[in-house]
């Protein structure tokens, strides 16, 4: 299969860098955030009909670095360089900031809701990853402060089905965490070590058995999950599981890869790169599970005028992708098979 990624809509409004985008779980709304300290919610409509729905300002004192919708679609979390996380709830027809989470020492870089919605994860330049428990009435309680990284933590992502958390860091590694069933303590249960520079982002595939990581070292890496006693004979210590690097995709990206997204509908991988390009990768037919190969099926040169910071596949509408950039724009793309 080949395909072509076509720009269908450009959303203007932010001033300065747009850092992150997040699709509402129903796929009809997109949130974006950036240097101008605002969060913008856009109504997604097919073609070029998408429009600004509302603007959330006054939540943060500095850059809003990342945003994430809860899976129920009722709450939006935003992480800021002002060291706080804000929770916006949809009540009586509008979004209101109902909680501000404090605790990180400096810039919060990423935020993510667990699948069940009962937990929130955040990470910061202070090298820590926090797990927050979500209670009724906008109560958020810190359940764990995880200090597995030796540097700035760039990204937190939850496993799509289980309460397994992954974090990517400036220390070149990805760490995995789980709650220990016996003592209810969150602990680091794995390290993904192979990149030679900052790991900017990561994404799970739809099964959660694979992870793709994107790095400042200009490569993507695919990691495959192995359970104890696997037929391949991959050693699994501590009895849980291990993610092993089974593929390195190099030679395509010429600058840092700031974000990666793995579509749970089409299995396509999209990347946001510092060379102003968006690239789409697909696993080749008859690819070996333990040694998969991926090909670049689409490359949009000059997708934005500057660095691209984020790409996100629409969770409901097949082949629709959102991107945002230092150039102040949010763009919506559509993958067209040829």
């Amino acid at each position: 299969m080949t395909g072509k990624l076509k720009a269908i809509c450009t959303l203007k409004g932010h001033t300065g860098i747009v850092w992150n985008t997040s699709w509402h779980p129903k796929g009809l709304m997109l949130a974006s955030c950036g240097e101008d300290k605002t969060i913008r919610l856009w109504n997604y409509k097919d073609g070029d009909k998408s429009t600004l729905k509302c603007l959330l300002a006054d939540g943060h004192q500095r850059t809003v670095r990342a945003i994430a919708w809860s899976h129920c679609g009722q709450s939006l979390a935003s992480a800021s360089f002002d060291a706080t996380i804000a929770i916006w709830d949809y009540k009586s027809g509008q979004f209101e900031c109902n909680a501000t989470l404090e605790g990180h020492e400096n810039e919060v870089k990423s935020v993510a809701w667990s699948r069940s919605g009962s937990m929130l994860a955040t990470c910061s330049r202070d090298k820590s990853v926090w797990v927050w428990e979500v209670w009724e009435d906008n109560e958020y309680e810190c359940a764990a402060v995880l200090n597995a990284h030796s540097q700035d933590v760039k990204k937190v992502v939850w496993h799509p089905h289980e309460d397994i958390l992954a974090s990517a860091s400036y220390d070149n590694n990805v760490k995995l965490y789980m709650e220990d069933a016996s003592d209810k303590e969150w602990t680091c249960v794995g390290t993904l070590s192979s990149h030679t520079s900052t790991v900017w982002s990561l994404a799970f595939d739809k099964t959660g058995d694979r992870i793709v990581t994107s790095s400042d070292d200009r490569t993507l890496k695919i990691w495959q999950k192995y359970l104890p006693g696997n037929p391949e004979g991959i050693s699994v210590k501590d009895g849980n599981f291990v993610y092993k690097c089974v593929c390195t995709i190099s030679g395509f990206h010429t600058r840092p890869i700031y974000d990666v997204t793995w579509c749970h509908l089409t299995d396509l991988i999209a990347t946001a790169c510092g060379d102003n390009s968006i690239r789409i990768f697909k696993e080749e037919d008859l690819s070996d599970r333990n040694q998969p190969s991926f090909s670049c099926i689409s490359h949009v040169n000059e997708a934005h005028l500057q660095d691209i910071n984020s790409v996100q596949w629409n969770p409901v509408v097949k082949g629709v992708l959102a991107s945002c950039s230092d150039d102040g724009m949010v763009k919506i793309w559509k993958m067209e098979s040829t």
Partner: protein
Amino acid sequence: MILTISSLLMMFANLMQQTKKIIQEKYLKNDSGNTTATMIEIDTTDEQLEEKTQELKDQIFDIIRTIKDPEKPATLEDLNVVYENGVEVINQRSLKLYTVRIEFNPTVPHCSLATLIGLSIRIKVIRSILENVKLDIYIKEGAHTTEEEINKQINDKERVAAAMENPSLRDVVEKCIKEEE
């Protein structure tokens, strides 16, 4: 300064158009085949690009030479922290991008202000030239005790963006990059 650059770019664009015209005319007159014409076009473009690369190199050096040292009453050029052959421009033609690599030499190997100097260089260059230019800034090899650490930090766009939102740090950088009237 910004005005000068944009007018230079305009001049360049005009020049390109003229060249295109000349080639087109030549091609139309030459019925013997399009292979020669295509070759001329590629050659001319190469020359043009080389010229543009040199121009960009000069522009970048002009931008960074007047940055003031955070401590001393002198410019980075006066102190030999930046120098003309420390600016390298690589043309990534297929992506329509220019990668600019700037090397600088801190005055002493344990210079505590090396990060600040790197930050000032980055901010001043990105404020002057934006599109199609990608910037990498490095300390001269062997010139600093924590060279790799500083290189990584000043080339991390997120760390740079956050640093510039720190009021005291921003003030120092603004002072260093302020142009004298």
